[in-house]
Protein backbone atom coordinates (compact mmCIF):
# COMPACT_ATOMS: atom_id res chain seq x y z
CA UNK A 1 0.00 0.00 0.00
CA UNK A 2 1.59 3.30 -1.07
CA UNK A 3 2.23 5.94 1.55
CA UNK A 4 -0.23 8.83 1.49
CA UNK A 5 0.95 12.00 -0.18
CA UNK A 6 1.76 15.04 1.93
CA UNK A 7 -1.27 16.78 0.47
CA UNK A 8 -3.57 14.00 1.67
CA UNK A 9 -2.04 14.12 5.14
CA UNK A 10 -2.54 17.88 5.28
CA UNK A 11 -6.17 17.57 4.22
CA UNK A 12 -6.77 14.82 6.77
CA UNK A 13 -5.17 16.98 9.45
CA UNK A 14 -7.45 19.84 8.54
CA UNK A 15 -10.39 17.49 9.05
CA UNK A 16 -9.15 16.79 12.56
CA UNK A 17 -7.00 13.68 12.06
CA UNK A 18 -4.04 14.44 14.31
CA UNK A 19 -2.37 11.13 13.48
CA UNK A 20 -2.01 12.38 9.91
CA UNK A 21 -0.13 15.37 11.26
CA UNK A 22 2.03 12.99 13.27
CA UNK A 23 3.02 11.32 10.02
CA UNK A 24 3.97 14.69 8.55
CA UNK A 25 6.10 15.35 11.63
CA UNK A 26 7.91 12.03 11.16
CA UNK A 27 8.57 12.78 7.52
CA UNK A 28 10.04 16.23 8.03
CA UNK A 29 11.38 16.29 11.56
CA UNK A 30 14.93 15.58 10.39
CA UNK A 31 15.16 18.47 7.98
CA UNK A 32 13.29 20.81 10.31
CA UNK A 33 15.61 19.87 13.14
CA UNK A 34 18.63 20.65 10.96
CA UNK A 35 17.23 24.08 10.10
CA UNK A 36 16.95 24.75 13.81
CA UNK A 37 20.33 23.28 14.54
CA UNK A 38 22.04 25.51 11.99
CA UNK A 39 20.20 28.49 13.39
CA UNK A 40 20.81 27.96 17.11
CA UNK A 41 23.82 25.65 17.15
CA UNK A 42 22.66 23.62 20.14
CA UNK A 43 21.05 20.19 19.89
CA UNK A 44 18.58 20.26 22.74
CA UNK A 45 17.49 23.77 21.86
CA UNK A 46 17.14 22.78 18.22
CA UNK A 47 14.87 19.87 19.15
CA UNK A 48 12.65 22.12 21.22
CA UNK A 49 12.48 24.69 18.46
CA UNK A 50 11.73 22.02 15.86
CA UNK A 51 8.84 20.88 18.03
CA UNK A 52 7.66 24.46 18.34
CA UNK A 53 7.95 24.86 14.57
CA UNK A 54 5.62 21.91 14.01
CA UNK A 55 3.13 23.29 16.50
CA UNK A 56 3.20 26.64 14.74
CA UNK A 57 2.81 24.92 11.40
CA UNK A 58 -0.22 23.07 12.76
CA UNK A 59 -1.80 26.28 13.96
CA UNK A 60 -1.13 27.93 10.61
CA UNK A 61 -2.20 25.03 8.47
CA UNK A 62 -5.12 27.06 7.15
CA UNK A 63 -2.65 29.45 5.50
CA UNK A 64 -0.72 26.66 3.78
CA UNK A 65 -1.42 26.04 0.11
CA UNK A 66 -1.83 22.27 -0.07
CA UNK A 67 -0.93 22.28 -3.76
CA UNK A 68 2.65 23.31 -2.92
CA UNK A 69 5.31 21.13 -1.29
CA UNK A 70 4.92 20.81 2.46
CA UNK A 71 8.63 20.40 3.27
CA UNK A 72 9.88 23.82 2.17
CA UNK A 73 6.92 25.48 3.84
CA UNK A 74 7.45 23.85 7.22
CA UNK A 75 11.22 24.51 7.06
CA UNK A 76 10.52 28.18 6.46
CA UNK A 77 8.21 28.18 9.44
CA UNK A 78 11.06 26.63 11.43
CA UNK A 79 13.52 29.29 10.29
CA UNK A 80 11.10 31.98 11.36
CA UNK A 81 10.56 30.34 14.76
CA UNK A 82 14.31 30.18 15.31
CA UNK A 83 14.84 33.78 14.26
CA UNK A 84 12.17 34.94 16.69
CA UNK A 85 13.87 32.96 19.43
CA UNK A 86 17.31 34.35 18.58
CA UNK A 87 15.98 37.89 18.43
CA UNK A 88 14.72 37.49 21.99
CA UNK A 89 18.07 36.44 23.34
CA UNK A 90 21.00 38.48 24.49
CA UNK A 91 24.35 37.76 22.82
CA UNK A 92 25.60 36.01 25.96
CA UNK A 93 22.86 33.40 25.59
CA UNK A 94 24.00 32.44 22.11
CA UNK A 95 26.26 29.54 22.86
CA UNK A 96 27.21 26.39 21.05
CA UNK A 97 27.09 22.77 22.01
CA UNK A 98 30.40 21.54 23.31
CA UNK A 99 29.79 18.02 22.15
CA UNK A 100 30.56 17.08 18.58
CA UNK A 101 27.70 15.84 16.48
CA UNK A 102 27.99 12.93 14.20
CA UNK A 103 27.03 14.10 10.72
CA UNK A 104 24.71 12.01 8.59
CA UNK A 105 25.40 10.33 5.30
CA UNK A 106 28.97 11.01 4.45
CA UNK A 107 30.13 9.30 1.28
CA UNK A 108 33.54 8.79 2.85
CA UNK A 109 34.01 5.80 5.12
CA UNK A 110 37.58 6.01 6.31
CA UNK A 111 38.33 7.42 9.77
CA UNK A 112 40.39 10.30 8.40
CA UNK A 113 37.72 11.28 5.90
CA UNK A 114 35.07 11.03 8.59
CA UNK A 115 37.17 13.23 10.82
CA UNK A 116 37.56 15.81 8.04
CA UNK A 117 33.85 15.88 7.35
CA UNK A 118 33.10 16.18 11.03
CA UNK A 119 35.69 18.91 11.48
CA UNK A 120 34.38 20.87 8.52
CA UNK A 121 30.80 20.53 9.68
CA UNK A 122 31.81 21.67 13.13
CA UNK A 123 33.73 24.62 11.74
CA UNK A 124 30.76 25.69 9.67
CA UNK A 125 28.38 25.27 12.58
CA UNK A 126 30.55 27.42 14.77
CA UNK A 127 31.01 30.00 12.05
CA UNK A 128 27.25 30.18 11.55
CA UNK A 129 26.65 30.43 15.28
CA UNK A 130 28.92 33.45 15.50
CA UNK A 131 26.89 35.35 12.95
CA UNK A 132 24.21 37.76 14.11
CA UNK A 133 20.80 36.05 14.10
CA UNK A 134 19.52 37.89 11.03
CA UNK A 135 22.64 36.99 9.07
CA UNK A 136 22.12 33.37 10.05
CA UNK A 137 18.51 33.60 8.94
CA UNK A 138 19.30 34.93 5.47
CA UNK A 139 22.00 32.29 5.00
CA UNK A 140 19.56 29.58 6.03
CA UNK A 141 16.78 30.81 3.78
CA UNK A 142 18.99 31.51 0.78
CA UNK A 143 21.40 28.58 0.81
CA UNK A 144 19.39 25.82 2.47
CA UNK A 145 15.82 26.75 1.61
CA UNK A 146 16.79 28.24 -1.76
CA UNK A 147 14.53 31.24 -1.42
CA UNK A 148 14.89 34.29 -3.64
CA UNK A 149 15.81 37.70 -2.26
CA UNK A 150 12.19 38.79 -2.60
CA UNK A 151 10.92 35.71 -0.76
CA UNK A 152 13.44 36.22 2.05
CA UNK A 153 12.44 39.86 2.28
CA UNK A 154 8.82 38.83 2.67
CA UNK A 155 9.53 35.98 5.08
CA UNK A 156 11.70 38.05 7.40
CA UNK A 157 9.75 41.26 6.85
CA UNK A 158 12.87 43.23 6.02
CA UNK A 159 13.67 45.43 3.00
CA UNK A 160 15.22 43.84 -0.05
CA UNK A 161 18.31 45.99 0.42
CA UNK A 162 18.76 44.47 3.90
CA UNK A 163 18.54 40.97 2.45
CA UNK A 164 21.37 41.78 0.05
CA UNK A 165 23.55 43.48 2.62
CA UNK A 166 22.97 40.76 5.25
CA UNK A 167 23.86 38.05 2.74
CA UNK A 168 26.94 39.92 1.59
CA UNK A 169 28.27 40.50 5.10
CA UNK A 170 27.37 37.01 6.30
CA UNK A 171 29.25 35.41 3.43
CA UNK A 172 32.26 37.62 3.96
CA UNK A 173 32.33 36.59 7.60
CA UNK A 174 31.90 32.89 6.79
CA UNK A 175 34.59 33.08 4.13
CA UNK A 176 37.06 34.38 6.67
CA UNK A 177 36.19 31.69 9.21
CA UNK A 178 36.02 28.80 6.79
CA UNK A 179 39.27 29.90 5.08
CA UNK A 180 37.80 28.89 1.75
CA UNK A 181 37.38 32.41 0.57
CA UNK A 182 40.96 33.46 1.11
Amino acid at each position, binding site marked *: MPEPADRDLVLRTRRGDVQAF*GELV*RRYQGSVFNVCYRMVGERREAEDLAQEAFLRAYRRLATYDAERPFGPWVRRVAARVCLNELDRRTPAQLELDDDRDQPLASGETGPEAAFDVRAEADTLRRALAELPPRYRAV*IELRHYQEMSYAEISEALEIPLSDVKSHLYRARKSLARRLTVGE
Partner: protein
Amino acid sequence: LASSHLDESLLHGYLDGELEDPARAGVEAHLAVCAACASDLERLRRVFAAIVGAPEVQLGRDLAPAVLRALPSVPRWVPSLAIGQLVGALGIGVAMLLGLGTGRILSGLDTAVGRLVGQLEAAADRLDQSWQLVLQLSSALAAGPDVTLADLATSGVWVGIAAAAILLGFIGNGLMLGGVRRRVRS
Protein backbone atom coordinates in the same frame (compact mmCIF):
# COMPACT_ATOMS: atom_id res chain seq x y z
CA LEU B 1 42.61 49.12 -12.21
CA ALA B 2 40.49 48.33 -9.18
CA SER B 3 37.80 50.69 -10.36
CA SER B 4 37.45 48.67 -13.51
CA HIS B 5 36.59 45.49 -11.60
CA LEU B 6 33.13 44.29 -10.77
CA ASP B 7 31.59 45.29 -7.50
CA GLU B 8 31.59 42.24 -5.23
CA SER B 9 27.87 42.56 -4.51
CA LEU B 10 27.28 42.05 -8.21
CA LEU B 11 29.08 38.71 -7.99
CA HIS B 12 26.84 37.69 -5.08
CA GLY B 13 23.75 38.62 -7.07
CA TYR B 14 25.10 36.80 -10.08
CA LEU B 15 25.71 33.55 -8.21
CA ASP B 16 22.35 33.87 -6.49
CA GLY B 17 20.66 34.11 -9.87
CA GLU B 18 19.21 37.48 -8.96
CA LEU B 19 20.67 39.50 -11.83
CA GLU B 20 18.60 40.11 -14.89
CA ASP B 21 19.73 41.25 -18.28
CA PRO B 22 21.42 43.49 -19.17
CA ALA B 23 23.25 43.41 -15.79
CA ARG B 24 23.82 39.65 -15.99
CA ALA B 25 25.12 39.82 -19.53
CA GLY B 26 27.41 42.68 -18.50
CA VAL B 27 28.87 40.63 -15.63
CA GLU B 28 29.45 37.62 -17.87
CA ALA B 29 31.12 39.77 -20.50
CA HIS B 30 33.42 41.24 -17.86
CA LEU B 31 34.24 37.86 -16.32
CA ALA B 32 35.26 36.60 -19.72
CA VAL B 33 38.04 39.15 -19.98
CA CYS B 34 38.96 39.86 -16.33
CA ALA B 35 40.98 37.15 -14.56
CA ALA B 36 40.86 38.95 -11.20
CA CYS B 37 37.06 39.10 -11.14
CA ALA B 38 36.84 35.52 -12.41
CA SER B 39 39.09 34.52 -9.51
CA ASP B 40 36.88 36.41 -7.06
CA LEU B 41 33.87 34.60 -8.47
CA GLU B 42 35.56 31.23 -8.05
CA ARG B 43 36.43 32.05 -4.44
CA LEU B 44 32.82 33.01 -3.79
CA ARG B 45 31.64 29.75 -5.35
CA ARG B 46 33.78 27.86 -2.83
CA VAL B 47 32.17 29.78 0.03
CA PHE B 48 28.75 28.88 -1.31
CA ALA B 49 29.77 25.24 -1.62
CA ALA B 50 31.18 25.16 1.91
CA ILE B 51 27.98 26.60 3.34
CA VAL B 52 25.77 23.94 1.80
CA GLY B 53 28.38 21.21 1.94
CA ALA B 54 28.00 20.41 5.59
CA PRO B 55 26.13 17.14 6.10
CA GLU B 56 22.93 17.10 8.03
CA VAL B 57 22.92 16.02 11.64
CA GLN B 58 20.99 13.02 12.91
CA LEU B 59 17.98 13.84 15.03
CA GLY B 60 18.29 11.87 18.23
CA ARG B 61 14.62 11.17 18.94
CA ASP B 62 11.18 11.06 17.37
CA LEU B 63 9.48 14.41 17.89
CA ALA B 64 6.04 13.26 16.77
CA PRO B 65 4.73 11.95 20.13
CA ALA B 66 5.67 15.16 21.94
CA VAL B 67 4.25 17.29 19.13
CA LEU B 68 0.96 15.39 19.14
CA ARG B 69 0.69 15.65 22.91
CA ALA B 70 1.23 19.40 22.70
CA LEU B 71 -1.30 19.99 19.94
CA PRO B 72 -4.13 22.26 21.02
CA SER B 73 -7.44 20.42 21.37
CA VAL B 74 -9.00 22.96 19.04
CA PRO B 75 -6.41 24.34 16.64
CA ARG B 76 -6.45 28.04 15.89
CA TRP B 77 -7.36 27.44 12.30
CA VAL B 78 -10.59 25.73 13.34
CA PRO B 79 -12.13 28.92 14.75
CA SER B 80 -10.97 30.83 11.73
CA LEU B 81 -12.55 28.40 9.31
CA ALA B 82 -14.76 25.63 10.59
CA ILE B 83 -16.25 27.35 13.61
CA GLY B 84 -16.52 30.59 11.72
CA GLN B 85 -18.34 28.85 8.93
CA LEU B 86 -20.43 26.91 11.43
CA VAL B 87 -21.48 30.07 13.25
CA GLY B 88 -22.23 31.73 9.96
CA ALA B 89 -24.27 28.76 8.79
CA LEU B 90 -26.10 28.59 12.11
CA GLY B 91 -26.87 32.28 11.92
CA ILE B 92 -28.25 31.91 8.43
CA GLY B 93 -30.18 28.81 9.46
CA VAL B 94 -31.72 30.54 12.47
CA ALA B 95 -32.59 33.52 10.30
CA MET B 96 -34.19 31.19 7.77
CA LEU B 97 -36.14 29.36 10.46
CA LEU B 98 -37.29 32.65 11.90
CA GLY B 99 -38.23 33.74 8.43
CA LEU B 100 -40.14 30.54 7.82
CA GLY B 101 -41.82 30.81 11.20
CA THR B 102 -42.72 34.40 10.59
CA GLY B 103 -44.09 33.45 7.22
CA ARG B 104 -46.16 30.70 8.77
CA ILE B 105 -47.45 33.00 11.49
CA LEU B 106 -48.31 35.66 8.97
CA SER B 107 -49.82 33.08 6.67
CA GLY B 108 -51.94 31.70 9.53
CA LEU B 109 -52.96 35.19 10.56
CA ASP B 110 -53.86 36.01 6.99
CA THR B 111 -55.99 32.86 6.75
CA ALA B 112 -57.78 33.62 10.01
CA VAL B 113 -58.42 37.20 8.96
CA GLY B 114 -59.62 35.96 5.59
CA ARG B 115 -62.12 33.62 7.27
CA LEU B 116 -63.27 36.39 9.60
CA VAL B 117 -63.70 38.74 6.69
CA GLY B 118 -65.66 36.10 4.81
CA GLN B 119 -67.95 35.57 7.77
CA LEU B 120 -68.37 39.30 8.20
CA GLU B 121 -69.18 39.65 4.51
CA ALA B 122 -71.76 36.87 4.74
CA ALA B 123 -73.29 38.46 7.83
CA ALA B 124 -73.33 41.80 6.06
CA ASP B 125 -75.08 40.22 3.11
CA ARG B 126 -77.71 38.75 5.38
CA LEU B 127 -78.08 42.08 7.16
CA ASP B 128 -78.45 43.83 3.82
CA GLN B 129 -81.10 41.38 2.74
CA SER B 130 -82.99 41.81 6.00
CA TRP B 131 -82.71 45.56 5.81
CA GLN B 132 -83.96 45.56 2.25
CA LEU B 133 -86.87 43.39 3.29
CA VAL B 134 -87.68 45.86 6.05
CA LEU B 135 -87.52 48.71 3.55
CA GLN B 136 -89.79 46.90 1.16
CA LEU B 137 -92.29 46.10 3.87
CA SER B 138 -92.30 49.63 5.20
CA SER B 139 -92.75 51.01 1.68
CA ALA B 140 -95.60 48.62 1.04
CA LEU B 141 -97.35 49.64 4.24
CA ALA B 142 -96.90 53.32 3.38
CA ALA B 143 -98.36 52.79 -0.09
CA GLY B 144 -101.73 51.77 1.32
CA PRO B 145 -103.94 48.70 1.23
CA ASP B 146 -104.35 48.79 -2.58
CA VAL B 147 -100.79 47.81 -3.17
CA THR B 148 -99.87 44.23 -2.44
CA LEU B 149 -96.43 42.64 -1.98
CA ALA B 150 -96.95 41.00 -5.34
CA ASP B 151 -97.33 44.42 -6.87
CA LEU B 152 -94.11 45.50 -5.24
CA ALA B 153 -92.33 42.44 -6.46
CA THR B 154 -93.39 43.08 -10.01
CA SER B 155 -92.78 46.77 -9.93
CA GLY B 156 -89.67 47.58 -11.95
CA VAL B 157 -89.16 50.80 -10.04
CA TRP B 158 -89.06 49.12 -6.69
CA VAL B 159 -86.96 46.31 -7.94
CA GLY B 160 -84.45 48.82 -9.27
CA ILE B 161 -84.44 50.70 -5.98
CA ALA B 162 -83.92 47.49 -4.07
CA ALA B 163 -81.09 46.39 -6.34
CA ALA B 164 -79.40 49.77 -6.01
CA ALA B 165 -79.71 49.62 -2.24
CA ILE B 166 -78.21 46.13 -2.16
CA LEU B 167 -75.41 47.22 -4.44
CA LEU B 168 -74.67 50.24 -2.29
CA GLY B 169 -74.71 47.98 0.74
CA PHE B 170 -72.21 45.66 -0.85
CA ILE B 171 -69.95 48.54 -1.85
CA GLY B 172 -70.12 50.07 1.60
CA ASN B 173 -69.40 46.81 3.35
CA GLY B 174 -66.64 46.01 0.93
CA LEU B 175 -64.91 49.32 1.52
CA MET B 176 -65.24 48.97 5.26
CA LEU B 177 -63.97 45.38 5.40
CA GLY B 178 -61.21 46.14 2.94
CA GLY B 179 -59.97 48.83 5.29
CA VAL B 180 -60.07 46.37 8.19
CA ARG B 181 -58.02 43.81 6.20
CA ARG B 182 -55.39 46.37 5.24
CA ARG B 183 -55.01 47.45 8.84
CA VAL B 184 -54.61 43.87 9.98
CA ARG B 185 -51.96 43.15 7.36
CA SER B 186 -50.02 46.30 8.09
